[in-house]
């Protein structure tokens, strides 16, 4: 069986709200696929449909070519961390894993193995209700690893983790992908995926905006942009704009220019005797690239914070 | 670097002083903004009304005025029921040997014998009647405003098993000499009238008289009917009990009293005695001469007069009509019958009230609540008040709609609605709403103690409804039933009892028939005590426990 998640044409309406609007993408094995988009873009709904928790109005979601509900031991096909709170708080962490194991025909030995893998040995007899959010995430990961599945699906796994936990999680996700598993990780913070994801599915308003490798996205976002550092900002802007470039002031002494090659910028500034200290090619961060992509797709946008006059 | 001086931030609004009104307002906002709870309260009111009307409208009674007559149903079956001076339905059926009495006067008799016969429905039809008196077989002297059933009266009487009594206007009863009547120990009875005041005396020997009581019958006309009477209520025994009701068997009874030393003062001398079966089916009319059917044959009402001895035989009762599902000859109903739907409403109310607090625990909202108002006891009080007030409003609306509609339906279906005063009606309606409201408060308290919906809902329903069911189910001995309805929160339903139990009427005054061991407001107080206790426990626990 191919270790993939294939999602095609998913539609789902909650009352008048269209949550999924033809969501289509495929998650391939051997890499971490980042599943990003603003709040309410349909990431969690997609994952719930994949797990058969919600029924889509239209479209299919297949795990290795099969619908989730037809899997005999679903946890050994796909491990999911959807909602760290999806447990009964009065049950101990170990017993929570134990019933999950029993539902898959697994034994307590496997439970102890995943407890060790998630680093939960010291707290496993405690009631899960008393866990911090980070601990619950680890418990959720242990549950996802129970069946040693070739496909993993995690919804916001970095939520509530301390910096140490985030570093651990990144390494863990990379090692899972390195073992040849397909790993889908959702996040609304692109920075969390910066060094982890190899592939990105960017969604907004229930559909895919971009389905691309991280490399391609970054280079597209930094395409022929130049940063100029200058003490004479307004003169430089006048000169370059006159020559047909698009100029944006991005700092008190920096400008971002597009539409002109770097050599031409240097010569123009030199001809007009505008002082400048640095001309560099621009390197977009993943965050910027993402903001660029989703600018029009954000459903809930906060009012910009009030600027304090200088 | 320039040093920056930042003035500390001050909230733009001064802190309000009176916190409790705000707390109430906050809890009310919480309540009304959860659609499920509002719907729950509406459902509580609707099921109360709906079930009440179903009970009142379900099944029509049928009757036949004569064995060969057409079968009637519904309102056509309603018999004419006399209403006494106090406004209550009464039975006024007795054999009356009388003379008119104009102005003041007095009547004195000696009763040397009182015997009785009764039929038992369990025995074969046509078999001879059994010898024996009913506890409240009555015979004696009576002064009544008129022979119209339901008119004002005062009477001195001997009874089957309750000694000498003075009774007036159907509901009042005063004990005189105890003991049974026999030739060896006869009873002397005297009743005097002075204006609208009647005074009763009794004596064992005719010389030493004891005043039993004095009653004032307002508006007594100057000419009244005075004389001798005999009457005996129907016999009844409980033959079996089963879940949800008991069955009784019984039959009519007669009693026969012998009077001598009859003296009547204040009447025109030498006036003749006439005999009437008051309020009856005119069976005694033919016997008024006293010739045909004497008491000896024992089968009919009438009187016999010879040598100053009167033998009077009568059947019926002079007493308030009580609600006795097994006893009375025609279907009667009480205003609270239609309010039994309140039990369904109660369950809905308890569910909503419990959730009002447990929902806070389930999602950790209690932490927000207690952060906003750290004085925990006041939070609980505000919650209890809001839950109680909302429930009271819903319950009152439901009861106000149900009672008049159910009365109409009941009447249309052929049940006689036993009349009560408006004050009683108001007490029943307001009391029902109050019971629901206090039950909601109890539910909030238990919900705080247990913090789990399922456990708390069950606990509250079980302590209120289950004792009631066991109390009316006739599976337990009556003593245990009464005990349950005295100490458990189910006692509160006494507030719905519209008719009092009269000791002078022998009827099944069991919880099954709707008679509670405690007085209406006393029963309600039991529920209040439970709610107060639970609230106190809840407050202590809420203060002590971590949220």
């Amino acid at each position, binding site marked *: 069986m191919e*270790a993939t998640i294939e999602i095609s044409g998913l539609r789902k309406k909650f009352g008048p709200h269209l949550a999924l609007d033809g969501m289509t993408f495929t998650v391939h*094995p*051997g890499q971490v696929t980042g599943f990003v988009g603003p709040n309410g873009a349909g990431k969690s709904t997609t994952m719930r449909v994949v*797990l058969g*928790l919600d*029924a889509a109005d239209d479209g299919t979601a297949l795990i290795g070519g099969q619908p*989730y*509900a037809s*899997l005999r031991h*679903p946890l*050994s096909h796909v491990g999911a961390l*959807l909602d760290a*709170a*999806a*447990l*009964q708080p009065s*049950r101990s962490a170990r017993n929570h894993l*134990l*019933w999950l194991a*029993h*539902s898959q025909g*697994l034994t307590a*030995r496997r439970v102890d*193995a995943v407890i060790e893998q998630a680093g939960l040995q010291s707290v496993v007899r405690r009631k899960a209700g008393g866990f911090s959010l980070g601990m619950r995430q680890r418990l959720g990961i242990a549950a996802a690893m129970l069946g*040693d599945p*070739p496909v993993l699906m995690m919804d916001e796994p970095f939520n509530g983790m301390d910096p140490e936990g985030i570093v651990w999680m990144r390494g863990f996700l990379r090692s899972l992908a*390195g*073992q*040849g598993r397909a790993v889908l990780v959702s996040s609304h913070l692109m920075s969390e995926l910066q060094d982890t994801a190899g592939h990105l599915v960017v969604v907004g308003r229930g559909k895919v905006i971009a389905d691309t490798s991280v490399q391609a996205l970054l280079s597209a976002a930094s395409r022929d942009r130049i940063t100029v550092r200058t003490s004479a900002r307004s003169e430089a802007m006048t000169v370059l704009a006159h020559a047909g470039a698009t100029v944006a002031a991005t700092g008190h002494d920096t400008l971002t220019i597009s539409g002109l090659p770097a050599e031409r910028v240097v010569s123009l500034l030199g001809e007009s005797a505008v002082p400048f200290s640095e001309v560099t090619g621009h390197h977009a961060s993943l965050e910027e690239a993402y903001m660029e992509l989703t600018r029009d797709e954000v459903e809930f946008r906060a009012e910009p914070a009030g600027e304090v006059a200088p | 670097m320039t040093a920056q001086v930042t003035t500390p931030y001050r909230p733009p609004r001064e802190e309000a002083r009176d916190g409790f009104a705000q707390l109430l307002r906050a809890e009310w906002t919480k309540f009304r903004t959860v659609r499920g709870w509002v719907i729950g309260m509406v459902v509580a009111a609707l099921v109360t009304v709906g*079930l009440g009307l179903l*009970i009142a409208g*379900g*099944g029509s*009674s049928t009757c036949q005025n004569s064995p060969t007559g057409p079968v009637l149903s519904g309102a056509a079956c309603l018999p004419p029921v006399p209403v006494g001076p106090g406004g209550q339905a009464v039975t006024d059926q007795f054999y009356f040997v009388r003379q008119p009495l104009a102005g003041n006067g007095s009547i004195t008799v000696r009763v040397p014998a009182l015997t009785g016969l009764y039929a038992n429905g369990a025995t074969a039809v046509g078999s001879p009647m059994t010898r024996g008196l009913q506890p409240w077989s009555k015979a004696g002297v009576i002064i009544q405003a008129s022979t119209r059933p339901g008119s004002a009266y005062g009477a001195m009487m001997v009874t089957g098993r309750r000694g000498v009594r003075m009774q007036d206007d159907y509901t009042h009863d005063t004990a005189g000499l105890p003991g049974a009547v026999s030739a060896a120990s006869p009873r002397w009875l005297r009743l005097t009238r002075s204006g609208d005041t009647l005074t009763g005396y009794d004596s064992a020997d005719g010389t030493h008289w004891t005043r039993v009581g004095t009653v004032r019958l307002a508006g007594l006309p100057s000419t009244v009917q005075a004389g001798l009477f005999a009457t005996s209520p129907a016999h009844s025994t409980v033959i079996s*009990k*089963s*879940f*949800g009701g008991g069955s009784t068997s019984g039959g009519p009874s007669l009693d026969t009293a012998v009077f001598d030393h009859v003296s009547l003062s204040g009447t025109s001398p030498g006036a003749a005695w006439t005999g009437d079966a008051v309020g009856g089916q005119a069976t005694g009319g033919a016997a008024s001469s006293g010739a045909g059917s004497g008491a000896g044959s024992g089968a009919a009402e009438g009187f016999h007069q010879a040598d100053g001895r009167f033998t009077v035989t009568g059947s019926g009762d002079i007493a308030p009509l009580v609600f006795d599902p097994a006893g009375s000859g025609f*279907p009667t109903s009480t205003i609270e019958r239609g309010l*039994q739907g309140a*039990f369904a409403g109660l*369950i*809905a109310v308890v*569910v909503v009230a419990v*959730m009002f607090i447990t929902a806070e625990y389930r999602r950790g909202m209690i932490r927000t609540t207690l952060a906003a108002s750290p004085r925990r006891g006041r939070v609980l009080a505000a919650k209890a008040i809001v839950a109680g007030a909302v429930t009271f409003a819903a319950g009152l609306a439901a009861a106000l709609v149900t009672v008049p509609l159910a009365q109409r339906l009941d009447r249309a*279906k052929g049940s006689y609605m036993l009349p009560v005063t408006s004050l009683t009606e108001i007490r029943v309606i307001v009391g029902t709403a109050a019971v629901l409201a206090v039950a909601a408060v109890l539910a909030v308290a238990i919900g705080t103690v247990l913090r789990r919906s*399922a*456990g708390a*809902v*069950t606990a509250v*329903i*079980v302590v209120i*409804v*289950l004792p009631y*069911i066991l109390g*009316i189910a006739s599976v*337990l*001995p009556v003593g*245990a039933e009464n005990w349950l309805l005295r100490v458990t929160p189910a006692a509160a339903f006494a507030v719905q009892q519209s008719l009092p139990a009269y000791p002078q009427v022998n009827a099944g005054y069991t919880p*099954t028939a709707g008679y509670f061991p405690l007085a209406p407001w006393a029963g309600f107080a039991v529920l209040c005590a439970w709610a107060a206790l639970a609230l106190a426990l809840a407050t202590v626990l809420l203060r002590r426990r971590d949220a």
Partner: protein
Amino acid sequence: MSQAPPAQRASLLGERPADPDGPQNALQAGWTSLREALHAEWTKLRTLPGTIWLLAGIIAATVAVSSAATAAMSCPSRGCSVDPAKLSLTGIDLSQAVVAILAVAAISSEYSTGMIRSTLTAMPRRTTMLAAKAAVVTGLVLAAGTIAVLGSLLAGRLFLSSHGFTPAHGYPSLSLGDGPVLRAAAGSVLYLALIALLSLGIATIIRDSGAAIGTVLGLLYLSPIIAAVVRSPHWHNDIERYAPMSAGLAIQATTGLRGLPISPWAGLGVLAAWASAAVLGGGLLLRLRDA
């Protein structure tokens, strides 16, 4: 571009057989998944701290109320018109409420905590999951109910014989060797099991624990109250015949069977119909609704 899936992963899972593919294996696969679901549901229920207390509560409530009822009753002479077996089992009236809590909590606590999502992720065959849950809850109730009923009958036997329910007054002491008494006892255990199924079904339909338990208790406890006040004997009989509590408890009657509105086993059958309707309705909705 993907690395080959390492072969050693399979060994981690032990010797579990591969998923069956052929249709001839479908039945066997169904059994296996039901067995695994049963195992999981059993682990779930036994690791909840409330379960043991509720089971103890079933036993305590039954025995306590039954003992109180038999201790309060006395029979001074012949013809006391009391059904000693039924009286000895009065506690079922109360313990059915505890059974309802247990059964309702088994499903609605999953909804209130969000655990249902873990459950349905692990067991996507929802009807199998519900069947397993029903079986585990019913099994526990049957066990606790058996102890409760035996304890109640023992208490009834002790109290009644010392309160005048003697052979001289027409009452042989309660014994399971007596056919009707055995039927009342076994039937009461089954009654509790059916109440568990009814509650589980209603809780699956309603999902919220408070509303579900309110519905269950209303369905059970309102019928005797309404039956006591309806005018027409016809309606009264219909309520006793078709309401879950009064019909189901007909199984406890050992005297005056002729006068019953419904015969004992038929009454239990009526309750069974209510329970299956609730469970089927719950199963259907569970399949249709989003978790």
